[in-house]
Every structure is written in structure tokens, then in C-alpha cells.
């Protein structure tokens, strides 16, 4: 074989490699963006356009459906409830999850493997299975129909992620850094606050966001466990069932947008988390 032939082959493979890369990027972007874009178009269209076919590619900027929701009674309360529950979930899952992650990465204790297993297993039981017994228990303890009660359930859902994410974050920080801090006059606690915390704060934020989004999107427990204090998902589920199509789209849009804005605002921390976790 001559050098030229070798070069041709490698140029060819490099070209097709680049094409494959480009195609994958386009495909993945389309996968995420196209549905959201249609949601946007339909939300900003008049009821007639929503029911017609083919769809226009440029929104009409008809705010009728959105105005309807803005005026819909209970809507703003539901939005507020969602935010409260999501924030509570976020705080609780970090307060409980991060120490567990720390313990998993730093201490050797009997049953460590089993503990990790169990944390993952909490996701093995489908929520519908748990929702009814939970509802009964909540009614007995007076936790039913409260933001805190719902946040407890959402925290259970978010904790496995919080533990595993913080576990990998803590593991990415060499124990010697903490040990050095101990020899320099730190206790375990001050070594944590002065050395470990600054290093993992971005990652902690990211896993908090994760918890927020999990709670924000959760609908089943929210629908079963709340009546008066519905969250946005539960509220929309209840009311959209019987609504016309254009209102369904607008409702979906209202649900998606806050989460999108939130994630966009804190994307820096998400990337930071992956950067650390991948190291």
C-alpha cells in the first residue's frame, strides 16, 4: 500500500466521522426542540388554527389561550404551590442526600454495598403502588393536602439522585485535601466547610436543581395527595382533561416553560457537575 492510499482512507473515515457527529447533534437537538416548538406554535395560535392541518411554522401570536389561563381561578395558587413544593423538595433532598453521599464516599461501614442498593431500590416501586397507602397514612397524620406532605413524597423520589450525584462529587475530591486540612488545624466539620464545600458547591447546586425539576414534573402523587392545595401539574391534569385542544397545548406550555427557564438559568452548574463527575 502506498502512503497516498492510506491518507485517502483516513480522510474518508474522518469525513464520515464528522458527518455522523453532525447528524447526531442535529438529531438530538431536533428530538428536544421540535415538540417544544410545536407546543409554542399551538399555544400562540387561535383555537381554529390549532384544530386545522397543516400547521403554520410561524406562530400567530394569538394570546387568547394564555390569557384564558392567566384569568383562570386557582391557576396562580397552583403555580405558587408548585414552586413551594419544589423548593421544599430541593432543600430536603440535599439536606438528607448530601450527608448520605458523603458517608458513602468517605467511610467504610458494614452493609455499604447493600445501602447503595437500597437507595436505588426506592425507585423500583412504582408510585401508583405507593400512592394509596401513602394517602391513607397522610390523612391519618394530617399531612394530606399540604405542601410539606407532598414535598416529603417528592423528596423520596429525588433522594436516590441526590445521594448518587453527591457521592460521585465527594469521591472526585481526594481525601488527602481533607486530611491536609485536618493537619492544618481543622476539625472534620471545618475541613468540610472550608475545603470540601467550596469545591462541591456547583455540583450540589446541580443536584438541587435536579430535585427541583423532579418535583416540578411529578403529577401522580400530587394528584392523589392534594385536593385544595393542588400543584400546577395536578391542577392542569384535573382541568385539562375536559378542555378543548388549544387549552391543552397552552396548559402544557405553561408547565414546560418555568422548568426550562430555571434550567437555563442554572445551566452553568449543571455543566460544572458533569465536569466534576466525569473526571
Amino acid at each position: 500500500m502506498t502512503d497516498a492510499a492510506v491518507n485517502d482512507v483516513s480522510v474518508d473515515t474522518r469525513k464520515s466521522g464528522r458527518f455522523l457527529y453532525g447528524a447526531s447533534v442535529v438529531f438530538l437537538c431536533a428530538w428536544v426542540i421540535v415538540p417544544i416548538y410545536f407546543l409554542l406554535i399551538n399555544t400562540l395560535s387561535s383555537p381554529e388554527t390549532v384544530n386545522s392541518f397543516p400547521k403554520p411554522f410561524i406562530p400567530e401570536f394569538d394570546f387568547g389561550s394564555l390569557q384564558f389561563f392567566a384569568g383562570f381561578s386557582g391557576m396562580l395558587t397552583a403555580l405558587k404551590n408548585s414552586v413551594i413544593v419544589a423548593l421544599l423538595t430541593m432543600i430536603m433532598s440535599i439536606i438528607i442526600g448530601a450527608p448520605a453521599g458523603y458517608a458513602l464516599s468517605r467511610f467504610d461501614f458494614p452493609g455499604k454495598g447493600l445501602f447503595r442498593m437500597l437507595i436505588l431500590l426506592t425507585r423500583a416501586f412504582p408510585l401508583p403502588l405507593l400512592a394509596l397507602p401513602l394517602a391513607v397514612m397522610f390523612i391519618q397524620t394530617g399531612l394530606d393536602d399540604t405542601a410539606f406532605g407532598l414535598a416529603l413524597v417528592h423528596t423520596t423520589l429525588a433522594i436516590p439522585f441526590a445521594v448518587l450525584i453527591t457521592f460521585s462529587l465527594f469521591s472526585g475530591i481526594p481525601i488527602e485535601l481533607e486530611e491536609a486540612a485536618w493537619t492544618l488545624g481543622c476539625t472534620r466539620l471545618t475541613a468540610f466547610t472550608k475545603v470540601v464545600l467550596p469545591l462541591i458547591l456547583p455540583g450540589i447546586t446541580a443536584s438541587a436543581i435536579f430535585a427541583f425539576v423532579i418535583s416540578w414534573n411529578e403529577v401522580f402523587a400530587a394528584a392523589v395527595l392534594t385536593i385544595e392545595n393542588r400543584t400546577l401539574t395536578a391542577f392542569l391534569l384535573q382541568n385539562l382533561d375536559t378542555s378543548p385542544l388549544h387549552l391543552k397545548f397552552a396548559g402544557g406550555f405553561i408547565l414546560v416553560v418555568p422548568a426550562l427557564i430555571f434550567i437555563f438559568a442554572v445551566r452553568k452548574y449543571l455543566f460544572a457537575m458533569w465536569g466534576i463527575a466525569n473526571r
Partner: protein
Amino acid sequence: MAEIQIKNIAKSFGAFQALNDINLTIADQEFMVLLGASGCGKSTLLRIIAGLEVASSGEVWIGGKRIDHLSPKDRGIAMVFQNYAVFPHLTVFENIGFGLRMKKLPNDEVTRRVERVAGLMHIEMLLKRYSGELSGGQRQRVAVARALAMEPDVILMDEPLSNLDALLRMEMRAELKGVLAESKTTAIYVTHDQVEAMSMADRISVMHQGDIVQAASPIEVYRDPAAKFVASFIGNPPMNFLPAKPAGPSKWQVAGQTFDGPNTDKAVLQFAIRPEDMQPAEQGLVATAKIVEPLGAHLLVTCQIGDALFRVILDSDAVVKPGQSLTLAPQPDRVRWFDPDTTLAVA
């Protein structure tokens, strides 16, 4: 006063015995070097003294107080870690000043001390940088500076100069030794570099598979190794060994020659001699030269005696060709004897 006493320290990781019953006393202000091959337990011993590892049994005393139940910050020690452990979120200045800030020293005192040790370690121009912006050798010097800034009673250093180039290392060696002597610090210094150990140590503890085989002054370790392991570990090239058979009271026969030796009833001993302690002579061990390596200052000749390899260092003017026969006379007062069963030296 910071005398360190290590009493019957043992450490096992599961079934693996990393340290077996270590006993060692390091005098106040002494510079003790722990020397040994990779994996022999040097770092483990250091970490037990620092309180980062819990010994399976035994006691550690510093300055007449038992300290093995105290947490690291209460032991009056500072440590330089084998992998530096420079904090990535702080500048070099704040790294070096970290311990001083923990002691709540006033700002100007912190600045004064940081600048002093940074000067000693030649890193004063790096004070504003983060550890990600430093080379390995620079990071290592930050780690040393951070420990020195604490002005501790005891400093524990785990291969603190391993990542520096030869020239800088030589300079740092002298500087570090000077600083520690001046500040009256007791030092334990881990290395696997013999030259470093020889040049810095007041005493060297040679470790082998979790035991301290010999703890003595550098020259004693070199001249009078307590065990065959020390003889074959220290010196470059190490000592030569030949089997010896009894030939009368206090007489031993080695490769056809008779030497004065220890008076024991052993059936066999090992005769040992350093490569530089032999001269070509009329009478002596007859060797066949195999490899001749001119090393500038001298000539290293690897020969064969019987079926044993034997190295000798000759003057660089000597003319030796491979295959040539040499007659080598060992300097009588430099000959050492080892018991092949216990591997210990026999006087």
C-alpha cells in the same frame, strides 16, 4: 521538646500486615529519614504518627505525651503529603496561610510568614496563582511551604522533593535541612532516594516489608549494614556477596582464598564487600571481567567469580577488557559477614 516515640506500632489492612511491631525513638530536633522500597509501609507509618490512620496496636508519644488518641490538629505536627494535596480553590498565598488563618493569627503575621517560607521555597512569584496553574514541582514546593509556615514541633514529609529536577532538588535539600535545623524542628522524612537519605539524615531507618531493619547514622548504615537486605539495598551498586566455608577457627574460605572472619560454628556464611573496597593486587579473589562501564569518575567492572556476579569499582585509568582475568584484594577492615539463615550481620 518534641521527642517522638513509636512503641510496638502494628497496622494491618484486612489480612494484609502493612507494619509489624515498629519501635523507634526519634530524638528532639533529629532529622530522621525513612528509607525503603515502594510499598514497605513508609507512608502508613507517617500517617499513623499524623493521626490520619489508626494503628491496629501500639502507642505514639510526642514530647512525653501519648498522642495516638488525639485528632491530627492537636498533635503539634505538620505534614507534607506524597501527592501534595494543595487546595485547588485557594491561591498559593491562601494555601500557605491556611493553617495560620485557622490559628487566627493577625493578617500581617500571616503575610510575614507566608512570604518568608515562599522565599525559602523559591515560589514568591507564584503567590497569586491557583494550583491548577502550577507545575508538579511548584505544587510540591507549595505543599512544603504550607507545612513550614505552621512552624510545628514535628514535621512529617512524604517524599517532598520527589518531583523536582536534580539541580533544584539538591538546592532544596540543603535549604530544607538548614531551615529545619534553625527552627529546631523534629523531622521525619520519607524518601526512596538513597542519596537524599544519606545527605540529609541524622539517622536513617531502613524499612523492609513493614519492619525497620536498621536505624542508624548514614555512614553506619552504609558501612555496617545490620542485615543483608540493607547491604543489598543501599549503595549503588550495592554490596557483593560470596559464599564462605569454614577453614579453621575464625578462618573462612571464599572462592579459593582464606580470610579472617567471625568465630562461629556455622557451616556456611556470606562474605560481603563493597565494590569500591577492592584493589587489583598480586594476591586475592580471581575474577573474570564481563562488562566494563566507564562512568567518568571511575570504572565499573562487572565480573564473575564462580557462578556469582561481582561488581568492582576501579580507578578510571585502569585498563580492563571483557574476558580479562582480574585479581582483586578486598580491604580487610571493610569485609562484612552475614548469616544466610537469619540474613543478619555476624561480627
